[in-house]
């Protein structure tokens, strides 16, 4: 197990969450606005402290991990990054190497890692451009590249597709699927179709509590969706995939 949480809670945002997360696979955290998705991700990322209960990563309490060591294991992607200053895309990517940096200058190894990550996310073409001039989709991929240069074992993403158009949403989740073969990817989303199509497991949150945890097909059933989101959902089964439609 990578993460083991017992009776995990934080302020008013999360209560009594207990779960175990494996070493690989794509897990989505679904739920309506204010359900506690970001709070849960924040705790896993070591950014929300002090939390109640216990949250172990690799057998050690998250808040007790030295920050630098933890950053070599767990990378976190915020919902969006707003920059006030003219950093280039490549500079933003290279910031991911901080947990490995031993000095003031970037090493050839850092550059190679950045090159690798930018190839994976298809961002090499605008490496020298001012980050602020990039489109939403390009920014998201640059931020993902920055997280990948941390060479993490766990990738935490807070609603990564919010600012993306349909095509970029799909290609992002296809990439995450690919990455999830070797690392644990945990993504918060409120798009249930994304959760249904791409994830190995769905954790459904409502009012700061976990109300469903398991295979997408089991958790995302019409009764639970009606209870949590207050909409009527219909599941459609096609040849290769299932999807759902909603009405109020």
């Amino acid at each position: 197990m990578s993460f083991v949480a017992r009776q995990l809670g934080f302020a008013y945002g999360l209560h009594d969450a207990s779960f175990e997360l494996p070493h690989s696979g794509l897990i989505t955290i679904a739920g309506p606005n204010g359900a506690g998705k970001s709070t849960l991700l924040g705790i896993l990322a070591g950014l929300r402290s002090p939390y109640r209960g216990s949250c172990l990563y690799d057998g050690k309490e998250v808040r007790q991990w030295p920050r630098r060591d933890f950053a070599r294991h767990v990378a976190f992607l915020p919902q969006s990054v707003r920059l006030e200053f003219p950093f280039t895309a490549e500079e933003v990517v290279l910031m991911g190497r901080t947990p490995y940096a031993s000095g003031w200058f970037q090493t050839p190894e850092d550059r190679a890692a950045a090159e690798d990550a930018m190839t994976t996310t298809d961002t090499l073409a605008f490496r020298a451009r001012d980050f602020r001039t990039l489109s939403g989709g390009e920014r998201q991929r640059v931020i993902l590249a920055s997280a990948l240069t941390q060479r993490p074992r766990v990738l935490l993403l807070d609603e990564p597709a919010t600012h993306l158009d349909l095509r970029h949403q799909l290609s992002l989740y296809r990439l995450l699927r690919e990455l999830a073969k070797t690392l644990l990817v945990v993504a918060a989303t409120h798009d249930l179709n994304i959760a249904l199509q791409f994830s190995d497991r769905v954790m459904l949150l409502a009012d700061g509590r976990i109300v469903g945890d398991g295979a997408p097909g089991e958790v995302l059933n019409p009764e639970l969706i009606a209870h949590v989101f207050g909409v009527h959902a219909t599941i459609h089964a096609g040849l290769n995939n299932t999807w759902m439609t909603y009405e109020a």
Partner: protein
Amino acid sequence: MKRSVLLSALALVVVAVAAPLAGSSHIELGRAFAGVSPDHEIFFYARLPRVILALLAGSALSVTGVLFQCMLRDPLAEPYTLGVSSGASVGAVIAICLGFRATGLASLAGAALVLLMVLGMAVEGRRLSSFTLLLTGVTMNSMAFAVILFLHNLASFSQSFAISRWLMGGLESVEYTTLAWLAGVVLGISALVMLWAPQWNLLAVGDDWAASRGVSTVRLTAMGYVAGSVLTGLVTALTGPIGFVGLIVPHALRLKLGADHRVLLPCAFLLGGAFLIVCDTLSRTVIAPTEIPVGVLTALCGGPFFLWLLKSKRRSLWL
């Protein structure tokens, strides 16, 4: 990267060598070094200390400007945003009103007091947010300003004049021992700040961004605040508040060099010093023997240049 730092160093050297030779009375370097009067006195006791003070003050203010803009993620932040210089001003104004000679020491005490108060207010438990820092600092500024207005109102005519002159800011020749102290502290703290340049890059993006990449953001923010405040407090005690340097030098450099603090901080140190030397030289030569307050000149020289830079680069920077 290396080239911009080298060029900045070169510019500073040229300016620093040329500035002491310029002035209302003509002097020659050879005669000054040979000890011939009055060239010797003018060079070593009137002009050189003032050039060194301008260099150190300009460097310290520019480095602090870069630092505070980065920490607060606010392009409008400057060394005076977080309240320390207002504290220094209150100290100096109280000293003037009470007839103390040591305005410098009094303003140091005022700066230190505000530094401790802001830290005490903004740090809560083991948390420190740059936003609280900003609000506390701005409030301190307003309160200090109110105290200054009140004291100004009570002051006699000559005190009132002294207060106005102090608040305008200006460079005067100071003793070499004072300069040595200042140089030690400014160089030491600036070096330390530059050492942390990679971490400033991350903090400039965001607290969570930096924390999730292994940076202890609370410690870094606190150290940045103390470093910038000590630099600003010391300089303000010797020169009064000189505006605009700490705002404009960092922005001009970011337009030219980008946002990487590993380049930005050394260049801000070197060119900030050069910029203030140029302004001070102009302030004492343009309408000599009358001096223009240097704060007026920093705004008058720097402003139009900055607007031109902004206009010429705006399209490519998406501002």
